[in-house]
């Protein structure tokens, strides 16, 4: 789960990480009032679950409260990577002497949380990683002991030479690890971690991603979810326990299992079509899930054909067939439907479909070819 910068900052502040004050505004007028209280130059930052905010015009400096209002008005009209900006964070602008990067992520390769630190922080950190990997220090952390003080000092010495700054940064790193591990993070990041001209070390930005599997046991963190900042179709999918990602094609796909869903999308493309979405109905699928899946897919006007690809294991194909029948009864389809199903209770599923005037295929390639042909009017495949 993504949380906003201002929410991540609230968590980091609780752990004593130095972060400049800031307040959230939903309207240009609120932004102006906040800027007036700070009585200094402010930065107005879009709060949206998308990277590249700065490059998209979502972060702007404002010298006066009036200017804060006008830049907030601009930013609140923006849509960044398809997500409309509904809140801005207003925070006093800092004088920056240097920008560093620090972050923690769970690393597949070392099977541990790994700290990363670089003195070359800022918006081009990925380029730094790609071109000059020696400028980034990686340090795996033993989960039994956490980040020890000496380790934090080693990382901090990689960033700074001034001993006061090293000590300040080491403390920030240890607290960041605590914030990460005690809140079920899969990522925690400060970019940039800056030094000010007076020598202070301050976190100007904060990013945190929470492991979805942690949310059940952390209701306080789960409550930070901002549904208004997510795509409506994805909110509905999550509530129905589906995984859904909208794409730009016209073949709507309903599949059980992420790997098979991706392979189905690949095959749609292979036969000359374009998938309209990724949708995984998961393992134990009840008919209601299928109803929700069809409702989500048919709300996309680009969809010209719907393809079901179900390989029953834990998933019972008769559940899926019942779901299809129920969904169509509630809401007749305006586009053709191609159903491929095989596996658990296949005979029952085929019978259910037949009784309702539908049929099912058993071969994945044939089904995909048919769906693509229907979507493209026979031009492809």
């Amino acid at each position, binding site marked *: 789960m993504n949380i906003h910068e201002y929410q991540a900052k609230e968590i980091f502040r609780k752990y004593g990480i130095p972060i400049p004050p800031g307040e959230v505004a939903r309207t240009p007028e609120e932004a102006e009032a906040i800027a007036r209280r700070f009585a200094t130059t402010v930065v107005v930052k879009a709060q949206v679950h998308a990277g590249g905010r700065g490059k998209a015009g979502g972060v702007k400096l404002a010298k006066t409260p009036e200017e804060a209002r006008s830049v907030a008005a601009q930013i609140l009209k923006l849509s960044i990577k398809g997500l409309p900006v509904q809140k801005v964070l207003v925070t006093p602008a800092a004088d920056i002497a240097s920008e560093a990067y620090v972050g923690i992520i*769970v690393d597949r390769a070392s099977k541990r949380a*790994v700290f990363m630190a670089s003195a070359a922080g800022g918006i081009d950190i990925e380029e730094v990683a790609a071109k000059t990997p020696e400028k980034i220090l990686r340090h795996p952390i033993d989960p039994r002991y956490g980040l020890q003080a000496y380790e934090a000092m080693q990382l901090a010495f990689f960033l700074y030479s001034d001993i006061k700054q090293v000590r300040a940064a080491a403390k920030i790193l240890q607290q960041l690890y605590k914030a990460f591990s005690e809140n*079920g993070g*899969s990522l925690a990041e400060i970019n940039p971690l800056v030094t000010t001209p007076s020598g202070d070390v301050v976190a100007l930005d904060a990013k945190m991603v929470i492991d979805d599997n942690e949310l059940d046991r952390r209701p306080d963190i789960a409550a930070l979810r901002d549904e208004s900042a997510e795509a409506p179709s994805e909110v509905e999918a999550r509530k129905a326990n589906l995984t859904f990602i909208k*794409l730009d094609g016209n073949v709507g796909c309903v599949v059980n299992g992420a*790997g098979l869903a991706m392979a189905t999308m690949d095959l749609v493309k292979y036969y000359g079509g374009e998938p309209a979405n990724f949708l995984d109905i998961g*393992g134990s699928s009840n008919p209601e899930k299928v109803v929700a899946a069809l409702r989500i897919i048919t709300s996309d006007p680009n969809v010209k054909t719907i393809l079901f690809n179900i*390989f029953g294991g834990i*998933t019972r194909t008769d559940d899926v067939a019942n779901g299809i029948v129920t969904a169509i009864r509630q809401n007749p389809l305006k586009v053709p439907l191609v159903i491929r199903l095989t*596996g658990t209770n296949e005979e029952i599923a085929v019978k259910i479909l037949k009784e309702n005037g539908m049929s099912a295929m058993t071969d994945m390639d044939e089904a995909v070819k048919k769906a693509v042909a229907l979507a493209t009017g026979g031009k492809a495949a």
Partner: protein
Amino acid sequence: MSIFIDKDTRLLIQGITGRDGSFHGKQMIEYGTQVVGGITPGKGGQKFEDKVYVPPPFAADAMMEAADAGIPFIVCITEGVPVLDMTRVYLFVKERGSKLLGPNCPGLISPGASKVGIIPGRICTPGPVGLVSRSGTLTYEVVYQMTRAKIGQTTCVGIGGDPINGTNFIDCLDAFEKDPVTKAVVMIGEIGGTDEQEAARFVKQKMKKPVVGFIAGQTAPPGRRMGHAGAIISGSAGTAAEKMQAFEDNGVGVAKRPIDVVDLLKRVLR
């Protein structure tokens, strides 16, 4: 022959009383697996191989309990185990000398001999090909297509799709290389991470048996960015193209579609 499990494998099921545990427990017994017992977490029992069917918040504890009891091979089917729990479980299990398959995996099956987990038995048939995969239903799809083409399997292993899992591609490739009956290996990967690339290098350096591979997610859009850290840590975007290139560079046959696995196998088994 087979890897990891055979007809002599004795199995204990943790969480056998739940809906999934009892359903699949029955299926495994019907398949011929020697299920010697089932328990709910916290209660003792006679333990051999072990399979975990415990809900996510308790799965870490169940895996550690099994390892602490000296179970040599633990299979965890549970989906949704928090990844920070797994950083601890991984070390705990390893230090006690146990092997772990999963979590979030379909388990494994040695057709005609034994099955541990949820891979449907009827789609498999005994034969000379070993299979290792990161996915669940995509594994079934490929096995089904192999079986339809009369290409049987020694063992099919689902290692699971979680970021931290106990057994990886290389562990399985190594075991298949050493298994005298396995003549060829299928490797099914997905986008994300660098496991497949490392496995491809292992094939080139350490294996004599032919390996063919498929990567799901060739058309997946660049994923939801996990800040900058994801790309920095792996030095790789983990795209399908990157992985297929690694297969190609290291002599792993590249299947563009799942069905192509069958054609590639026919060629190498000839």
